[in-house]
């Protein structure tokens, strides 16, 4: 039994794009240990993406590889949550520039890894055995990612006035994007039906509890997750994804057909 390809791409794209974003901190982190930690998380995510793309490619056939899927699809073909493609700062148009904000990075890693921990856990019993195996491996990595992010949410939330202000603003910016976790795309519905995927409704309560508990411990006020519900996983992204892809794919597309 194989999961729907779009479902695998959704999982793979999430991992790749967030991996790409986290790697942007390399050489620019607030302290050397964090450069290393974020590179480590990014490496795990890229590793997850590779396994998922390889699996999807083997189902697709026709010369598809992990690299054709990562480098030769356009933004509307990407199936990641909008959350993971946002830049490391508050809301701004795609053409704007702003310094990277570590609070934004940490808040996103927290919200995403708390979600993925539960999702990987459940996906261990996917009827797609290969996906179940990838889930088991990813689960271990995600435990570390969540611990890292959670520790920093608490440290920065319950740190200085400045750090608290920044963490609070980051959650206010990002929490609305998590609404997308709970909407069902056609490929998710199909995966749930055929037993290869997970109905995210089943993990929502645990996720909400984790968020509540962590924000409480971090002395932060949990903002409402209201307003526009993003639709990245059906290919309707923010203006930011095409910039991420323009950079990420530039070299591969300059040399179509080359081997590296």
């Amino acid at each position, binding site marked *: 039994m194989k999961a729907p390809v779009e479902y695998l791409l959704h999982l793979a794209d999430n991992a*790749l794009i967030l991996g*790409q974003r986290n*790697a*942007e901190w*390399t*050489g*620019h*982190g*607030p*302290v*050397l*240990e*964090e*450069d*290393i930690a974020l*590179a*480590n998380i*990014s*490496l795990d995510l*890229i*590793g997850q*993406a*590779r396994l998922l*793309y390889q699996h999807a490619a083997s189902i697709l056939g026709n010369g598809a590889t*992990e*690299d054709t899927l*990562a*480098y030769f699809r356009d933004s509307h073909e990407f199936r990641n949550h909008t959350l993971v493609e946002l830049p490391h700062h508050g809301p701004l148009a795609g053409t704007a520039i702003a*310094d*990277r904000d*570590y609070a934004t990075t940490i808040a996103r890693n927290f919200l995403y890894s708390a979600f993925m921990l539960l999702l990987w856990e459940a996906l261990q019993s996917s009827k797609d055995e290969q996906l179940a195996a990838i889930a088991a491996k990813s689960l271990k990595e995600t435990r570390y990612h969540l611990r890292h992010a959670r520790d920093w949410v*608490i*440290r*920065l939330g*319950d*740190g*200085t006035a*400045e*750090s608290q202000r*920044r963490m609070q603003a980051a959650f206010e910016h990002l929490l609305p994007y998590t609404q997308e976790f709970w909407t069902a795309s056609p490929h998710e519905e199909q995966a749930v039906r055929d037993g290869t995927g997970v109905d995210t409704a089943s993990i929502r309560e645990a996720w909400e509890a984790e968020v509540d508990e962590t924000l409480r411990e971090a002395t932060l006020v949990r903002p409402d997750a209201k307003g526009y519900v993003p639709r990245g996983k059906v290919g309707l992204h923010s203006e930011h994804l095409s910039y991420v892809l323009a*950079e*990420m794919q*530039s*070299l*591969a597309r300059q*040399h179509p*057909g*080359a*081997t*590296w």
Partner: protein
Amino acid sequence: SAEQVAFDEKIDADRKVEPQDWMPEAYRKTLVRQISQHAHSEIIGMQPEGNWISRAPSLKRKAILLAKVQDEGGHGLYLYSAAETLGVSRDQLLDGLHTGKAKYSSIFNYPTLTWADVGVIGWLVDGAAIMNQIPICRCSYGPYARAMIRICKEESFHQRQGFESLMTQMRGTQAQRDMVQDAVNRWWWPVLAMFGPPDKDSPNSATSMRWGIKRISNDDLRQKFVDATIPQAEILGVTVPDPDLKFNEATGHWEYGAIDWDDFWAVVNGNGPCNKERLATRVKAHEQGQWVRDAALAHARKQKARQMKEAA
């Protein structure tokens, strides 16, 4: 003094000096300078290679490069720790870097202009670094020697990865081969200069040799590097941009042309293509990370206060 005699005997017997041991102040200072310079090089060295992480042309290469740059950060950590055993704090060391007082390897003041630079840095820059560093694995100061053993192992791995990456590119399209040759042309001379000025112009070397901090002279290391590298270039199918290069059958060594030391000193003295950018990038990251470090400290203090209150 008796301490000096004991120290000298230890050096002569090729035994390790450890943090708790007495050591001459000049020895300590030389070590701090050298280790911190080495640590700073690892940290600044994250920038030129980091420049291609976001654009690596395959996921496998992206992962390899990211892991490599992460390793460099790790090397920086070991080395700062080794330096701290000599009684300086990381903040002091970083301050030296950020104010421009401490140096780092000049090679990182060149830009990485194409993806091939990443492979060439692995092959040539890491290759040269290993040549420089292997003798330090036998350095008289224990913590430094042990850090270097670990670092050299990882660097050799990086060097092989760099070579393998270039090999793949050389088997690829003409555009890829041209890119590799262009990168070799740009990096060759700066890499040869990495071994430092010629022995005749290197006055501090003698003392470092005496103390077992330095083990082989600049020119000897450079020759060793050229001899090891030219056959590798032939395997790759690239040439080095040196019209005077020739093999001397009698000595068994490759003879290379004159190095432009004016250019080397210009870069060392701040006038390379990227000196300002490298340092300003480091300073900016440090300054913009201040609130994060402050918060971590503040939180730790709060936690401690809470624990003491609970314990009371």
